[in-house]
């Protein structure tokens, strides 16, 4: 793998940047792999990378029906944070945030990871009680968090309407300083490049059409490029997880919903942090390019169409404009939808299944992007050792029958 550096940039400028090495190769599928990962998004690529790097398993294929990072990795609103309420979820997301903090160096790839902080606004007395409870829980778990007063919020974000007459009065906020944003595509590309360098085969335009089994164990996957045999098959297909599960006659406790987001035209720097409000379900940040990145809520119906209904967008924009009157004349550039696989308890499933050698990482719902490195890390462990990573153990699919649900609706509801 060619190392990226300032010196390299200078050197290649002499040859007009025409001799850069390809970032990853485009191999033909081998007959057999130790592990086949279904889904070439951030989570799948991170899983492949950590399997190769930490567990020495390099005979891996990542099978992707489209192109790498073209699903929800390309469609989220790039926010990274770990201020979840319950211990199990906090530990998992904090594990991920800690990996984020050294990831750009480790992958030798600029992820544009920017710890610009995240504000969660409170508009009601109950909001503030919930915020205090969550911040205290975070601090007990060693995660940074503060409760800010209205004056502190106003000082931090002067353009936010904190006046008494505001439609959504701001009573305070929670603040996680180590949270922030990252460049979504770069994460997938960085993991893909590093995994490729460790010998992982990235098979794009390869769609899984079936999973072959024998005596309760997986044998491999049927694809549009033929059968690929595998000892272990790991499904990281986000919104399409239920479709993969159906291939082996399984149902999952998931529903796939459209989730919409949008960006404005590029503006001069005006917002240097992430502002979100659970109460009115809107959140906004400004990308390095200058666009305002705005996330809406999910559409309530099941949908695989990667688009949602307009009234959901309208609802979010109405709230954003009330909070930031200065944005009222900003024009939107693009809006899109992704398919998110939501769990009844708003927590993911990282789990073995009753079929030997078949693993699922799904159910991240609206909040999978922030967990990309952490999910890949614990899922790789789960696959390699055939037993759950300690951090992944509470997220087994068995929790739905044992009753040990982890209700993160409060902290996971908004900000993706």
């Amino acid at each position, binding site marked *: 793998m060619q190392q990226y550096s300032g010196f390299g940039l200078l050197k290649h400028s002499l040859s007009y940047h025409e001799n850069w090495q390809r970032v990853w190769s485009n191999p033909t599928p081998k007959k057999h792999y130790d592990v086949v990962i279904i889904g070439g998004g951030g989570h799948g690529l991170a899983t492949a990378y950590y399997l190769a790097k930490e567990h020495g398993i390099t005979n891996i294929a990542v099978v992707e029906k489209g192109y790498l990072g073209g699903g929800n990795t390309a469609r989220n609103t790039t926010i990274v944070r770990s201020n979840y309420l319950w211990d199990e979820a906090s530990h998992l997301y904090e594990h991920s945030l800690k990996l984020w903090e050294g990831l750009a160096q480790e992958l030798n790839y600029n992820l544009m990871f920017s710890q610009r902080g995240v504000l969660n606004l409170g508009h009601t007395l109950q909001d503030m009680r919930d915020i205090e409870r969550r911040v205290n829980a975070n601090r007990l778990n060693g995660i940074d968090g503060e409760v800010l007063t209205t004056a502190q919020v106003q000082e931090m974000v002067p353009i936010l309407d904190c006046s008494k007459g505001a439609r959504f009065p701001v009573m305070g906020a929670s603040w996680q300083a180590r949270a922030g944003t990252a460049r979504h595509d770069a994460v997938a590309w960085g993991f893909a490049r590093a995994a490729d360098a460790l010998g992982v085969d990235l098979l794009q335009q390869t769609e899984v059409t079936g999973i072959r089994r024998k005596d309760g164990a997986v044998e491999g996957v049927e694809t549009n490029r033929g059968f690929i045999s595998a000892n272990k098959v790991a499904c990281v297909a986000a919104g399409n997880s239920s479709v993969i599960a159906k291939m082996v006659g399984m149902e999952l406790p998931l529903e796939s919903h459209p989730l919409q987001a949008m960006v404005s035209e590029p503006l001069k720097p005006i917002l240097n942090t992430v502002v979100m409000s659970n109460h009115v379900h809107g959140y906004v940040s400004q990308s390095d390019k200058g666009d305002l990145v705005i996330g809406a809520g999910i559409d309530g119906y099941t949908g695989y169409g990667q688009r949602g*209904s307009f009234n959901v967008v309208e609802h979010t924009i109405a709230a954003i404009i009330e909070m930031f009157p200065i944005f009222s004349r900003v024009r939107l550039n693009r809006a899109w939808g992704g398919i998110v696989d939501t769990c009844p308890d708003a927590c993911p499933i990282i789990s073995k299944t009753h079929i030997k050698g078949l693993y699922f990482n799904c159910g991240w719902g609206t909040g999978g992007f922030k967990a990309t490195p952490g999910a890949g890390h614990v899922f790789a462990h789960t696959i390699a050792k055939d037993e759950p990573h300690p951090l992944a153990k509470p997220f087994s699919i068995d929790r739905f029958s044992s009753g040990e649900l982890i209700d993160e609706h409060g902290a996971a509801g908004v900000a993706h």
Partner: protein
Amino acid sequence: MLLIHCPYCEEMREEEEFSPAGQAHIERPLNPEEISDEQWAHYLFFRKNPRGLHHEMWLHAAGCRKYFNVTRNTVTYEIMETYKMGQEPNVTASKEGQS
């Protein structure tokens, strides 16, 4: 924005008047004491979540406030039919030749 025909109001109305209520035709087990935790979990949480034809419930929240069923394609979002609670769908995956 979907346009949905409410089978009770017998009118085509905009999606904003309705709220989706998930998979239809789920039956609560009649013998909850006798079934296993897995079967109970299946009833409570596990869903078909199909890519394609789907039967789901909607509530006409800002109208007659009644629940009814909808057969809808989850990829194209096309609504094939709406029908009252207790009725069976006319359009099904097997009839349409989908698995």
